Structures are given as structure tokens and as C-alpha cells.
């Protein structure tokens, strides 16, 4: 099987909320000092989904990442987990795009890779929380898409996907090639092995510039955007929590119970 996984480098979403800062002049996030970016967690789960299929069926996993200032230690993580190839769409022309221009470039890169049975993406990136690029790639490539998957099973040219819903899951069947977006319900991504880390260190990513994928400059990055972000801001928090105390934890709990009943919050 030929599998392609699209991954995005994002600011670490597990960084403490207090360290999150915005520069209002540029409408951009100020990276918190000392916190390295990561592969968006849902994208790591997409890599895990690909690895599970490779374990079961064999094949090749090609990872594609689009961005600027891509830290090699970060974007090589899928290689250290067991992926085979890493392609970086790294150029200022790709920068500051939206779902539209990002999907356009990734779809062109996927076409250039050529042979593929499944394209995996995370269900949404941890920075924009949009969840559009996967479906958009499928639309551009003209292939079916199944979003928010937690289990994927391939039999010959058919694929069966468990898609997470509000009250359980749907079992969806479709044919290959297909694009699937992966959710956290898939389970934890595997750790990189020492052997994997060593192999990833030796492997140099392939870099494709816009001309390499035949991209029209007007469609790329900031130039190709269809939406403009007018403002990025942090909501103001009131922070007026009343701390309920007592002689000990049990006493504090009893006092809390009294407060809740007195305030008529519970009846």
C-alpha cells in the first residue's frame, strides 16, 4: 500500500495557557520562550493510523509537511516512528495561507508523489482548529473522503472506516483511493524507537519549492487566501472564583455543599 500523511508543525498545544500571548500588531502568536513546536497531535494520530496499516499490509508511508521554519527534529518525528519518506513544502511563498491555499499546495504535492491508496490527515490542526484541509484535498483530487475516523480496515480495494459521531460511531465503507481524517479516539501514537530515531537522523527530507509542484504563485500562501483574518485576540477572563476553605479538605467540601445550596445552585 502507498500511504501519504499530511502533518503540520504547530505551537505546542499542551503549553500552559498562561504562556499564550498574541502580538496585536501582527495578529500572530508569540511563541512562548523555551517551548518547542510539535507535530499537531491529531496529525501524529494520522501517522499512527498509517503505521498500523503498514504493519498489517506492508507498504510505503510518505509524509508531507507544509510550512516555514520547519524544525527538522520536529518534522522528522514521523520518520522516527516508522514512516519512510519526508517531503517538505518549505518556502516563504507557502507561508501565511489559509485552508484553501494550503490544500491546493498539498494536493499538487500528492499528485506529484503519484501513486497512493490512502491520504491521511489529522481531523483538525491544533492551532487553527479548522479541520478543512483534509476534505479540501479530497475535493481537489476528486476522491472520496471520510472524516473523524477512529479505526481503519483495508480489504483489497475496499476500506471500512469507523467514523466518530456524537453518540457513538458509523461504519462507513468506500473504495480506494480515499482521504481519511483521523481523530484522537484512534488511540495513542507509538513512541519513536531508538532505531527509528537513528534512521530519521540519517534521512534528509526532500524539499519541493512551488515550481517543483507546478503551483501558480497567485494560488499559494498569503496570495491565494480566500479569507482574511481581521483580528486575533484573547478573550478576557473575569476570574472571580470564591475559594471555599475549611479546617481540612472534608470540612471545605462540606462548606462548599452549604454554599451551593444557599446560592440555590442545587435543589
Amino acid at each position, binding site marked *: 500500500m502507498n500511504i501519504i500523511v499530511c502533518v503540520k508543525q504547530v505551537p505546542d*498545544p*499542551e503549553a*500552559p*495557557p498562561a504562556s*499564550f500571548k498574541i502580538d496585536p500588531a501582527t495578529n500572530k502568536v508569540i511563541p512562548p520562550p523555551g517551548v518547542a513546536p510539535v507535530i499537531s497531535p491529531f496529525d501524529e494520530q494520522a501517522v499512527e493510523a498509517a503505521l498500523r496499516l503498514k504493519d498489517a499490509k506492508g507498504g510505503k508511508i510518505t509524509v508531507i509537511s507544509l510550512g516555514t521554519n520547519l524544525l527538522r527534529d520536529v518534522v522528522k518525528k514521523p520518520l522516527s516512528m516508522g514512516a519512510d519518506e519526508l517531503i517538505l513544502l518549505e518556502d516563504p511563498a507557502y507561508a501565511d495561507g*489559509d485552508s*484553501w491555499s494550503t*490544500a491546493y499546495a498539498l494536493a499538487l504535492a500528492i499528485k506529484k508523489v503519484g501513486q497512493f491508496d490512502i491520504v491521511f490527515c489529522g481531523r*483538525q490542526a*491544533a*492551532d*487553527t*482548529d*479548522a*479541520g*478543512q484541509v483534509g476534505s*479540501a484535498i479530497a*475535493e481537489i483530487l476528486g476522491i*472520496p*473522503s*471520510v*472524516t*473523524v475516523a477512529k479505526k481503519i480496515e483495508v480489504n483489497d480495494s475496499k476500506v471500512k472506516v469507523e*467514523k466518530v*459521531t*456524537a453518540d*457513538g*460511531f*458509523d*461504519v462507513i*465503507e*468506500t473504495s480506494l483511493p480515499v482521504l481519511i481524517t483521523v481523530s*484522537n*479516539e484512534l*488511540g495513542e501514537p507509538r513512541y519513536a524507537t531508538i532505531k527509528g530515531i537513528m534512521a530519521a537522523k540519517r534521512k534528509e527530507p526532500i524539499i519541493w519549492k512551488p515550481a517543483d509542484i507546478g503551483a501558480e504563485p497567485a494560488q499559494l500562501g498569503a496570495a491565494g487566501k*480566500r*479569507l482574511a*483574518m*481581521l483580528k*486575533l*485576540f*484573547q478573550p478576557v477572563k473575569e476570574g*472571580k*472564583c*470564591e*475559594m*471555599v*476553605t475549611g479546617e481540612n*479538605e*472534608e*470540612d*471545605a*467540601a*462540606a462548606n462548599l*455543599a452549604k*454554599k*451551593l*445550596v444557599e446560592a440555590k445552585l*442545587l*435543589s
Partner: protein
Amino acid sequence: MAENKGILVVAEFLNGKLAPITKELLGAGRRLAQDLGEPLSAALIGEGVNGIAPEAIASGADKVYVVEDALLKDYRTDAYVAVVEKLVKEYGARVILAGQTTMGRDLAPRLAFRLSAAATMDCIDLAIEAGSKKLLMTKPVYGGNARAVFTGDVLPYIATVRVKAMAALAPDAGRNGEVINVAAGLDAGAIRTSVLQKVVQEVAGIKLEDAAVVVSGGRGIGGPEGFKQIESLAKLLKGAAGASRPPCDSGWVPETMQVGLTGKIVSPDVYFAVAISGSSQHLAGCGGSKNIIAINRDAEANIFKEARFGVVGDWKKVLPALEAKLHELLGR
């Protein structure tokens, strides 16, 4: 293609009626329609949905497009994208609204690319800019740490809206509206996915989304055993038990109990956050609660910034004492 005018809401259904999110979309759509001086329409897509049209009109729609076809029984990407595309091309739309739901998350991006337009997902505020008639769409980003306002020049605007972010109108059975039946015109061969099975894993008792009291446990609960205490308190308060993402990912509780950005959005009167640090991704699911009560060992935990009352302590000591005292005070 018809002129880009009016608001089109893509409806969803629950037990043969409009789903709450659809009434919220019609409420939001009504306000936008007023500001634009353009009509509000609802698309009822499915099988046997014709009878729901009067409810859509009572909830704010001026026009209801009913698209019925056996091929539309279950939501399937290819079929529903094709139907909405057809409606937009035949009748036009300036703004298309869907819920940030299983359906809307899947439908909106693909539809946007089909129409060579753009979608903005998970909006919590929508407004028309006076003069330019541009739609300003506000959505949380960075896991809820920040909010962004988007707009664009490409029509139609496509936005999905977060559950419980908008107010529905009080239903008015006296409102007038027009019902238009539209043929789906689908080619069965072009629908590339099939739904083999729909599995419902709903937890017994009151639904999380409907409960007036929710008691949720987090990573600090430490394992499935501790959730018995969470469920016991929820039961005493006639509420529902929930969880942040780590207990679900660790398999301590079912995934359907997850409250958060990628789980359920709840807005109960009282939300107990027990051993939950208060990550932005969790607050995206419970931030709309009227009162958050935080119980956490770490006095610096972010959840206290969101809470009305807080107790710093070990849940293993706090929870049993809280339950016992409430048992006594509430007389049950």
C-alpha cells in the same frame, strides 16, 4: 448560477423534529437576514422530512427547500454536498450556515471547495458589517486560547456554528413561509461511500447535553475506579457524568463522555470540574456553563480562573464529604 442573496441554513433533525442546533442557526440567520434585508431559507434534506417544514418556518425561515430522496436517508458526503450545491446554484445564497456537528464538520469544507468559496468552522459569533455587507465570523483558535475574526470577498460565505453559541427564536406558529419541493437529482453511482452500520454508545441516564448538572472528572482521577465517585455525585444531583479528554483517551470512560473541543459542548446550570486542570480544549466544551465548581489539588490550576466556587484539595477526600453533605442538605 443564481444571485448570491439570502441566508441558507442546512438543517439537521432529531426524532422527527428540527435538531436544537438548527433552531439556533435559524435564530442567528434571522438576525443576519434582517441586517441584510434578504430572506432566510432552510434546506431540509433527507427522507420523509417534509412534515418538518412548518417547524422550520415557525423557527424563523421565510422559505423551506424540501429535498427528499431515499438516497438521502443517511448523511453521506457526496450526496449532501451535491444537493446543497444544487440549491445554491438554483436559488442562490450569500451565506450558508451549518452546525459544527458530525454533519457540518464534514459537509462545509467540501462544499466550500466545490463552490470555489471558503468556509469558516466553529463560529461563535456572526455579524454583518454595515455598508460592505461582509460577514464577520468569529471563531475560537489555538484550542480556545484565542479568538479570530475572519471575513472575505468570495461569495457565498460558508460558516459552521458551535452548538449552543446562538439563541433560537421562540417558535411562532403564525409566521408565514413558503415550502418549495426540490428534486435531489442524484446519481446513485456518484455517491462513493455507504453507511454499513450506525452504532449508538449512549451512556445510560440523562444525556450530557441536556443535563442541568454535570459532574466531570479529569486526568487527576487516575483510573476508571474513581469515576464511580463522579457518577455517584452526578446521580445524587440528577445530573450526568462527563470527562475531559485524557480519561477518554486512556479508556477509563467511554468516548461519548468527553466534554471539550473535540467532544460534547455542554452548558448546564452547574458544572463540577473534578481533578481537571482546565485546558483550553476542555473549556471549549464547558465554558458556557452558568456556574463552574472547581475541585483541584493544584491551587494554580487554570480551571479556578473559570470557576465561581473552588476547593483546593484531593478529590478523594473532597468528593465523598461533598456528596455526604449534599445528601443531608438536599434531603435525599
